[in-house]
């Protein structure tokens, strides 16, 4: 069967720095896939490549059967690729409602501004911001701004949602709420690529995890298997610790994939 998103041998270099090296993976419809990696691993670069903010130096991206390697961000948005930003990007002087309506009007299915606002209101209710609809976006707290980003992306009627650190800076209670939201979104049939530092979020949501390190995809598979992969342990905790862990594992007779 054909995949929703297929990334083939994707590379991106900035001058001498190779931010993404020969990365290949696929996403299927309805999946929640986690993308993890230490700081500077190239996670956000990968998202920027997929959404057209950056053009790949080599390789290709196929989304819903079309090669989209060279598309511009606005084309990506209209084709069903929505993302949230690690650092939130609202339209500061507009109301919360207008922010979301922008997504519905320009990338979503809304045919008029009035309809866009009606749809926006539904998305705001979904993320729990309906009572803040008329406040300026800048008046929101950080967790609310993250939810605003989420509502804006949902208004774009995405097929694939790329969530870049939506949970960074949230406390435990807020994270639990965010988890519930993401489950509901996935249940609506939206495929999610989850870029995340918090292992709790990754392991409890993802069906599959991709691990980037120095721009390379070093491991992928089920969450637990990936977390026990020596290469992943080494990337996060260094080679010494990885060796010790491997030795320990052999003593206790735990098998690795």
């Amino acid at each position, binding site marked *: 069967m054909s995949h929703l998103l297929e990334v083939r041998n994707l590379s991106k270099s900035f001058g001498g720095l190779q931010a993404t090296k020969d990365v290949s993976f696929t996403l299927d419809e309805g999946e929640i896939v986690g993308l993890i990696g230490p700081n500077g691993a190239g996670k956000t670069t990968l998202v920027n490549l997929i959404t057209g903010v950056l053009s790949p130096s080599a390789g290709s991206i196929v989304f819903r059967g079309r090669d989209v390697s060279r598309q511009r961000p606005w084309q990506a948005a209209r084709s069903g690729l929505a993302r949230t930003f690690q650092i939130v990007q609202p*339209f500061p002087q507009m109301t919360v409602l207008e922010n979301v309506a*922008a*997504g519905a009007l320009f990338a979503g299915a809304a045919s008029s501004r009035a309809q866009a606002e009606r749809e926006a209101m539904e998305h705001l209710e979904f993320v729990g911001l309906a009572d803040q609809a008329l406040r300026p976006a800048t008046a929101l707290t950080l967790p609310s701004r993250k939810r605003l980003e989420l509502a804006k992306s949902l208004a774009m009627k995405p097929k694939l949602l790329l969530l870049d650190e939506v949970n960074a800076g949230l406390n435990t209670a807020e994270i639990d709420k965010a988890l519930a939201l993401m489950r509901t979104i996935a249940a609506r049939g939206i495929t999610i690529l989850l870029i995340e530092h918090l292992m709790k979020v990754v392991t409890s949501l993802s069906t599959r995890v991709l691990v980037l390190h120095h721009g390379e995809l070093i491991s992928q598979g089920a969450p637990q298997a990936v977390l026990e992969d020596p290469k992943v342990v080494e990337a996060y905790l260094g080679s010494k610790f990885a060796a010790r862990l491997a030795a320990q594992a052999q003593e206790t007779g735990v098998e690795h994939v």
Partner: protein
Amino acid sequence: MSTSAKLPARRGLRPAHFVFLAWALLLAAMPFLADNYFVRLATFVAMYSALALSWNFIGGYTGYPSFATAAFVGLGSYTGAVLQNAGAPMVAAWVCATLFTGLVAALIGAAILRMKGHYFAVGSITLIEVLHQVASLWSSVTGGGEGLNVPILAGGPDFAGRVFLYAMLATLLLVWAVTLWVDRSKLGFGLRCISQNEDAADMVGIQVNRYKTVAFTLSALFCGTVGAIYASWVSYISPSDAFSVLLTLKVPAMAMLGGLGTVYGPIVGAAAFVLMEETIWAHFLDYNQAILGVVIVLLILFLPGGFLKIDYRRLWRRPPPARPAAPAASALSAAVTGEKAEKGEKADKAAAAPLATFAREGRS
């Protein structure tokens, strides 16, 4: 769903429409009310209102500090003058000048709108100088530094005065109608998104370059009309008169004075500016431009949102007894700091933002 009930009510502009139409009628009635001096003044008010409203498309809604106004006015006046000298009827020359200016703006805009902030401002001001040089050097067509005479409209000064007043007023009404449409349309919404966060606008599916080019073209189109009418009106144009840097500074100042990115701000600003100029600083010939400079600085410091952004109801309300702060002072300080916290809903018109940005950029 029950959500529709919670949607915000749009603030109606209807009373403002009536005030504007009454104002336009008053300007139109000027030939019957007063002498030619006032007819001339009314023509200037209409002309500058049309220019300020035009500039508002790119400088107000889109947030791009364009200084190309004079370039397009000059281009329009030369196009109109050349066509009229070639035997084209006056109104046909105006229409052609409008379309030609729009075409040139669309081509140039697609290129220079890739620059942002200061770079765009400098790029747009360069345009004036380039066209100025072309007009000065291409003598066979433009008459070079000697300028160009335009056939004088037959029928005597009174008749001519009315014709040009109504031509400028018609242009103003046209720009006003287009502004009303843009303000409500998807285009206007997209432009406001671009002015606030261009990258985010791109990300929600707005064709940023196309939108900006449309805004730039709209801002130039009617400058071309005004320029052509102006050329017929004064019946003589020269390069330094047509491509005047002073004009390019005045027009944004008017729009800011009234309120950026609003339908009526530029009209209020242009009227206030022309009347102030005529009554106050025209008497100080030597300091004329210096006073304009001071006005611009004061505007940025104390009135970043323009006249229409002042909360006039707050000015009239008596201060609460517990707090000694004068309401006028607090309204002013709110305007200065761009503080919006208490005026939550009013932030839907994001007019204060671009000017605040200009102010910041100007100071840095």
